[in-house]
């Protein structure tokens, strides 16, 4: 074995050693870093039933704005942990809860009681009282949240902000 090929071997080894060690350190250090970055995807959000009012507080046929706390409220969330939904009492024991997010780009829709329409201020989306699209750019009907009645109180299940997908 001559000197030149030993040198070449040594050079190759040192390059591999340095790059390999660097990559190893980067990967190990990267685990907690990327965990922080992707934390929202790693953690599962539980679902809770939130009380939104006494049964008597809702008139049949009326649609009311109700406010409740999100599932993932933290101590430092403050008022941002609140969510609103439009809750309608369809019958004595039947409720429908509409998400307040327009299905176009998520802006807050308002219930116009006299006109029986939901209207969005951003790009003019309008929905009928059953949540179906009446006018404007929304690609689909308003999303509904699960509701239930328990012990004379009305409850809504916490849900993600409805995100409209490309195929909608």
């Amino acid at each position, binding site marked *: 074995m001559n000197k030149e090929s030993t040198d070449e071997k040594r050079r190759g080894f040192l390059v591999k050693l340095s790059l390999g060690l660097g990559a190893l350190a980067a990967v190990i250090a990267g685990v907690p870093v990327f965990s922080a970055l992707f934390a929202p995807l790693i953690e599962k959000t539980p679902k809770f039933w939130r009380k939104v009012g006494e049964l008597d507080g809702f008139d049949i046929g009326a649609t009311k704005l109700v406010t409740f706390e999100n599932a993932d409220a933290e101590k*430092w969330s*403050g008022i941002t942990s609140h969510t609103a939904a439009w809750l309608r009492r369809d019958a004595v024991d039947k409720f429908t809860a509409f998400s*307040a997010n327009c299905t176009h780009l998520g802006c807050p829709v308002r219930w116009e009681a006299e006109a029986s329409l939901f209207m969005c201020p951003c790009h003019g989306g309008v929905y009928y009282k059953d949540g179906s699209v009446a006018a404007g*750019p929304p690609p689909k009907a308003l999303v509904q949240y699960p509701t239930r009645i328990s012990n004379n109180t009305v409850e809504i299940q916490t849900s993600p902000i409805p*995100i409209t997908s490309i195929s909608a």
Partner: protein
Amino acid sequence: MKTLKKIWYWIDDRSGFTEIFSPLLKHLVPPGAKWSYVFGSATLFCLVLQVVTGVALSLLYQPSSAEAYQSLQFITHRAAFGNILRGMHYFGASMMIIMVSIHMIRVYLTAAYKYPREMAWISGVLLFFLTIAMGFTGQLLRWDSNGVWSSVVAAEQLGRLPFIGKFAARLLLGGNTINGHSLSRFYSYHVFIIPAIIFLFVGYHLMLVIRNGISEPPKVGRLVDPKTYRKWYQDMLKDKGIPFWPYAAWRDVVFGVGTIITIIILAIVFGPPELTTPPNPAHLNTTPTPDWYMLSIFSLFALMPARIESYMIIIGPMLTILILLALPFVSNKGERHPIRRPWAVFGSACVIIFVFTLFLLGEKAPWSPRFEAKPLTTANIQSSDTEINAGAALFYNKGCLYCHKINNQGGIKGPDLSQIAQRLSKGDMIIRIVNGGGNMPAYGGILNKKELTEVVVFLQSRK
């Protein structure tokens, strides 16, 4: 004096200041690079101002979902010069977007992106979009109801990404909903992550300016030939080049300082944008509107045909970036002078007119219902007939007035109905109201027979 000089010589020798910076300052630049070359450096001046005012704001700001709003109230109304500081950061951002846009258009019009400056264009395109991203995340950090809802809008846009949309939206918001993690993340994006990438690319962009030199002012008929350009450029510099400092740099300094002073004056005179209501996602009585530089996109979303919109929300921007990145590969040699590139001039003019028109439309937002409309006044109704007055009241109550104008009252989403009786017969009106159509809801299920009659009687009196 002599000792001072000695001290300076020692510092300069051991630190290497002159050795490192003198060649950069005194590098030769082509002659004739005049006022059209100042926009890149003006962007850099703005960036430095943004960093400095941004750091100052971070001393006063609480990046917490619960408390950011209160700390902004403090900055705006109580901190010494806080109002002007916020104003400078806001107008600095606006100016930076204007300057980077002019810089980009100038580079395109004079084809400075051609050989050998392709990478300068590519890094510049990325910097342009990073600047916009800074503007948008900065608007979110205002963390009022507008900030909260703008982040929801951004999440919805990301949601249109094929396959990974829901995950991307969740990642942006830091969870399924707006919550305690949302603002921490926006703060990190705006203050650490995006600026780090910007510094990296600005450094690279400037390094390329030194390495390839700034493009010489184009001359009709002088073509860029990749085979000979570098040698020709070096010979030209040796022959006619002038030192950058101070013979070319003075214009950058004059214009840059003028830009900064303009920003400060705007901040003092107009102040920062007023905060809207607190960041309560349960407060729905709010009309989210983006800052002016996003308004054109906002308008586009309102006007695009609904059928293609879900696709265009994400494919549109991606396609734009792709086309811009592909530009120096599609054309990297030949003519540079705009006179010989009429289609480039025409295309730029079209883009500018397109963006500006959308901006003006966004200011008017003719697609939005006017919730603030007040009931029709008696002076406007001009009738004592009970049925007409009942119809006029319904016209307001049922939301018709939000979109339709009656003389000086009402919205502009739908047609002006001040003289509708001249155009539509009673029968036509009933058909239209009951069935809706176009962008109008069908009122058949909303109005009862009596109400319908009253509304029609009212509209028949509008001649």
